[in-house]
């Protein structure tokens, strides 16, 4: 809300300020809402490419470490970004990641079901939890931070309890899932062009989750920026009351978004389970912060109403590089968290600047 008043006060500015004639195309590029996140990514990438050159930061194998890491955060970060644009938060994903994994593991190992049936069950369970989150938030008007904080612990408790009751353990193993399922859900992929001696590696050791991330990003980009649904999400985050008055089914939309984030979290849990052939009930508290950092670094406004999918993808890449990239440099690894904290601060400040540029953008001719 602070932002709205901020732009309001600036509203007298653009007519006098934007009289610059030259460099307009560059300026309009900067005014793109995802420019901040992209610029941040490029800076961080160059930084680590320079300092990590000796330790193979840029080689296909080296890149795969941070890309694989980023992909798992990224799959969840995009739906979390949707929620944040709509003015909500979901931190129950920390418990939904293991939930997705163990439901799949129990379906296949304990009950001997087909893996794809297990995937469906896992999605259904996650969807139901997301629906519950959405219902609680829309019906009670309790802030979603508190609601999902509660469900985070409820699900975490249920994960351990149900695992022990049904399977007698909190560490599940998955039977080999078969070639196709492994390929799609959790495997390492390498693409080389050319014959043995002159082979050129396009990518190496990328996990399936990386490709799932791309698919999720493309799908979500369509929803947010191309389809009319995106308009509803932005409108809901911009002014919920006005959105409801305009005939947008805000409650149903919000519930759908909570279901989406829950299912994305379960999907990540499943890919991890299939890849490692094990699933654990350990709650992934770290992922809660990771996704929020990616979304904020990606330029999504915490108070809602503003953000892009491309921005979140750039934010996730940046985060992945900073999180993993330190291993490729001569810096002490203990500085990792410090880097991430600094990144977050810089990103938020930079995004503010870029967003102000975007709102004050008046491509109107003067007078």
């Amino acid at each position: 809300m602070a932002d709205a008043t901020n732009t309001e006060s600036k509203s007298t500015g653009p007519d006098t300020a934007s009289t610059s004639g030259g460099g307009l195309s560059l300026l309009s590029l900067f005014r793109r809402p995802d420019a901040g996140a992209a610029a941040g990514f490029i800076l961080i990438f160059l930084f680590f490419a320079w300092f990590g050159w000796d330790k193979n930061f840029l080689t296909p194998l080296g890149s795969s470490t941070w890309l694989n890491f980023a992909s798992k955060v990224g799959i969840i970060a995009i739906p979390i970004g949707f929620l944040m644009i709509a003015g909500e938060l979901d931190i129950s994903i920390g418990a939904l990641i293991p939930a997705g994994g163990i439901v799949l593991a129990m379906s296949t190992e304990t009950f001997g079901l087909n893996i794809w049936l297990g995937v469906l069950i896992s999605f259904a369970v996650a969807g139901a939890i997301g629906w519950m989150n959405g219902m609680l938030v829309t019906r009670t008007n309790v802030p979603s931070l508190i609601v999902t904080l509660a469900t985070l612990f409820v699900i975490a408790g249920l994960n351990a309890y149900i695992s022990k009751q049904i399977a007698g353990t909190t560490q599940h193993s998955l039977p080999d899932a078969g070639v196709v399922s492994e390929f799609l859900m959790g495997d390492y992929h390498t693409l080389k062009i050319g014959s043995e001696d002159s082979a050129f590696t396009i990518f190496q050791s990328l996990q399936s989750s990386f490709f799932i991330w791309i698919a999720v990003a493309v799908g979500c980009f369509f929803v947010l920026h191309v389809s009319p649904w995106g308009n509803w999400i932005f409108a809901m985050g911009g002014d919920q009351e006005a959105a409801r008055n305009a005939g947008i089914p805000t409650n149903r939309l919000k519930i759908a978004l909570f279901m989406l984030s829950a299912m994305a979290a379960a999907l990540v849990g499943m890919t991890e389970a299939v890849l490692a052939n094990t699933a654990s009930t350990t709650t992934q508290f770290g992922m809660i912060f990771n996704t929020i950092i990616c979304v904020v670094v990606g330029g999504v406004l915490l108070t809602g109403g503003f953000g892009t999918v491309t921005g979140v993808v750039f934010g996730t890449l940046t985060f992945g590089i900073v999180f993993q990239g330190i291993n490729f440099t001569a810096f002490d690894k203990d500085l990792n968290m410090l880097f991430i904290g600094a990144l977050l601060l810089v990103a938020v400040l930079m995004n503010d600047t870029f967003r102000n540029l975007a709102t004050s953008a008046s491509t109107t001719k003067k007078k």
Partner: protein
Amino acid sequence: MSDKTPVLEMRKVDKSFGPIDVLHEISLKVNEGEVLCLLGDNGAGKSTLIKTMSGVHQPTRGEMLMDGKPVSFNRPREAQDMGIATVHQFGGTYPLMSVGRNFFAGNEPTKGVGPFKVFDRQKANRIAVDEVQKMGITRITDGDRLVGGLSGGERQSLAIARAVYFGARVLILDEPTAALGVKQAAHVLRIVNEAKRRGLAVIFITHQVMHAMAVGDHFAVLIRGAIAADFRKGEKTREEIADLMAGGESMADLEANIEGYMETHDGHVPEPAH
């Protein structure tokens, strides 16, 4: 005038929330191409009346008629479908969305088929800019521009243009000029006149008598949930209306009181009475 069927009419409408009566026997009518000004002080029940007209609340008693036929709205959407559009103080615009997206929020133009329907940005922008310009806002020429960069008056105008475009027949304007400067307010008043010229029935809610006098054809003063006065243009002076709004107490008397008090109390103003 009285032989025409009013577009919207309320007959003895009561609204109570539990034991609290908020509206009491409200009877109003508004014709095509006419501006009805609803005047009232804060807490007079203006918002409740608007919400009842726009389908947010349902009347406890009494009936509402559109074109002479009884209607009842269970949801704001139903009122909108009948052509009742409400524009609130900030126009229900979203500062961080473009003009085109704002204009069509909830009613997006699409191209393509099935699940791959695509928001038609160009069409949205073109129509939005066209409609806003027709309303006399020539400063908006780019549909991609974010609404946060527009002035308050322009945002109001955008919302009104939008309501008109989507086929509103009754336009309810909730304090459209309250947060605006003099020039901006004049702007909005011009647009109210434009809407009236196009044959819309406008219900203009305000507590600024000057603004009401500038556009109104018909006036109703609301005091404590009841209509205290109902008159046509030219039947009452500005002072009389202001007095009515202040609850029947004459403004002049009030001023005299305050001045008298200040003289005897070292220039201090009296404690407000509750």
